[in-house]
């Protein structure tokens, strides 16, 4: 029965970076900003996390470096789109290109270097419980952070006054501005939070998922995170469901292949995408709810009138 736990652990590892990056982007989009640079911030987080961990020998320094790198890159995006009111879609796309190029340059001397793994939790007796021990008490710290993040973001957005204000900024920046809410300040902080999350997701890739640096190692995960936010109609728990569903089908299809079921591998490879889209579309069928959840000012530049 150990294989059962192993499969669940692999699914959690595959889902965690998607969940973290998507959670960050959810907050960004709830504030009315569309940052398509998730992939770029993620890959910068991965390379900086790896470089810092290898140089200092301490994976925790790597985690912090990944978070910081993602946040710094997102400030660049914020300055351009918020202060200079550039087109958010174009700026986000260039941020991704910049991130991929820059990470290749930073990482050049780290290719092939042995990585440092962020140690998994180990609690005497509890971790050794059969079937669920390692699943609940024996995973890497970033996994626990990702779960806390879902609780935290839900609580913040829907149970705090600041969260309510952030959502109002995302729904109608003009009204928020008229009420005296500092729209740009909220958006700056939201974008930086999104950058930090993308950086953490990247650090998970290079410190936990595969502790090494290879160029472009995010391989499109940032784009999947972006899609998850939309398909989850900007609701945190649906993002969690979507990320784990995606992870489960990804890992499941690999096992199905190894078992030799004889299903065409191209079909199996596309299953995670199909399944996630179908399920999330089905649960978002309620139009009124979807419209209610969509940030109404998403991707619209805001220039305060003086």
């Amino acid at each position, binding site marked *: 029965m150990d294989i059962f736990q192993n499969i669940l652990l692999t699914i959690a590892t595959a889902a965690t970076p998607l969940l973290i990056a998507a959670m960050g982007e959810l907050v960004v989009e709830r504030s009315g900003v569309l940052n398509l640079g998730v992939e770029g911030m993620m890959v910068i987080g991965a390379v900086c996390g790896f470089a810092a961990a290898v140089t200092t020998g301490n994976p925790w320094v790597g985690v912090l470096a990944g978070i910081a790198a993602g946040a710094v890159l997102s400030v660049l995006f914020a300055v351009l789109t918020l202060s200079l009111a550039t087109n958010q879609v174009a700026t986000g796309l260039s941020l991704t290109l910049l991130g991929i190029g820059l990470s290749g340059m930073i990482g050049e001397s780290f290719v092939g270097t042995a990585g440092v793994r962020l140690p998994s939790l180990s609690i005497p007796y509890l971790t050794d419980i059969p079937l669920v021990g390692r699943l609940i008490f024996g995973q890497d710290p970033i996994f626990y952070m990702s779960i806390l993040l879902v609780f935290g973001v839900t609580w913040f957005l829907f149970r705090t006054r600041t969260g309510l204000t952030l959502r109002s900024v995302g729904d109608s920046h003009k009204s928020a501005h008229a009420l005296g809410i500092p729209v740009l300040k909220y958006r700056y902080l939201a974008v930086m939070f999104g950058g930090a999350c993308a950086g953490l997701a990247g650090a998970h890739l290079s410190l936990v998922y595969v502790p*090494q640096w*290879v160029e*472009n190692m995010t391989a*499109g995960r940032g784009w999947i995170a972006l899609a998850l936010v939309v398909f989850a109609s900007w609701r945190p728990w649906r993002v969690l469901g979507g990320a784990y569903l995606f992870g489960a089908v990804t890992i499941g299809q*690999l096992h199905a292949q190894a078992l030799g079921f004889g299903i*065409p591998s*191209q079909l199996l490879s596309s299953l995670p995408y199909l399944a996630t889209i179908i399920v999330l579309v089905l649960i978002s069928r309620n139009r009124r709810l979807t419209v209610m959840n969509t940030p109404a000012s998403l991707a619209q530049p805001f220039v305060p009138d003086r």
Partner: protein
Amino acid sequence: MNKFILGFSTALAVVLASQAQAADKFKACFIYVGSKTDGGWTQAHEAGREYAQKELGDAAELLFVENIPEGPDAERAIERFARQGCGLIFTTSFGFMDPTLAVAAKFPDVKFEHATGYKTAPNVTTYNSRFYEGRYIIGQIAGKMSKTGTAGYIASFPIPEVVMGINSFLLGAQSVNPDFKLKVVWVNTWFDAGKEADAAKALIDQGVDVLTQHTDSTGPMQVAEERGIKAFGQAFDQIKAGPKSQMSAILDTWGPYYAKRIKMAIDGTWKGGESSWDGLKDGILAMAPYTNVPEDVKAMAEKTEADIKAGTLHPFTGPVMKQDGSEWLKAGEVSDDGTLLGMKFYVKGVDDKLPE
């Protein structure tokens, strides 16, 4: 003022002279599909270019451009090189085949070499490496080292090159353990460290104790190292990712070939329209040191390597059955190159259905 003009014109003359000199030098140019530090396929080509540059010294200038996607961009990149005065252009990915031929038709005086393709022209040759020879050797090692008698194979795309590799690996393993089984997982990508690692974990969870791959990242090697099983490197020595796991690796050593071909282009003996498919004996591929294996296994691998080099052993020698049990090669019969290059079937013992 006069002094200034004099100084300026001298500087200009020097610049012009050095440019003229650079123009005299023969230029050979390389188009890479990936990054030159990918730790696999492209890095191996880059190592080959550096080797050739060292070998040729001042006789030629070797340029490259990296991260060129297969598609319309490739044609533009190749054409830019042709306009820049490159005498010989190496296009180092299968998907560059049609773009190479399109540009070659426009520049009949420029020479082209396309890696792993099958279309030639009066000024286009193709070159390839008999990777399957290396895969036979690592298959034999797997057959000796696996306790479960099952190896895992992480495959990229169901093209003949990859299918040929799977079959050769399995035939090698079956030559020492006739009941050897192979589990194949297709990841439908050449390069995604995370996904390759996931595939490795899935295979290990299902009981394989030797891993091999036809994808380009070191992800699977890393997983093998962590789970304490054995694995083989791909295209490049991956011993750093798996110091206790890597038993050997198939190394792409393009350098001598590149040096030879550029020399031929310079002295005028280069001919178009040819296809070369070199193997271990020509030095276009090599085996990484046999590590983490007992002495007898190492000796066996070295003997097989020597036999293949000497031409006394061909991995695809009968009797060989296809997966469905029908006969492919009669006893003693050796497969012809055409069948290998178009291979679309498994041999007996593969636990997978070949994607169409």
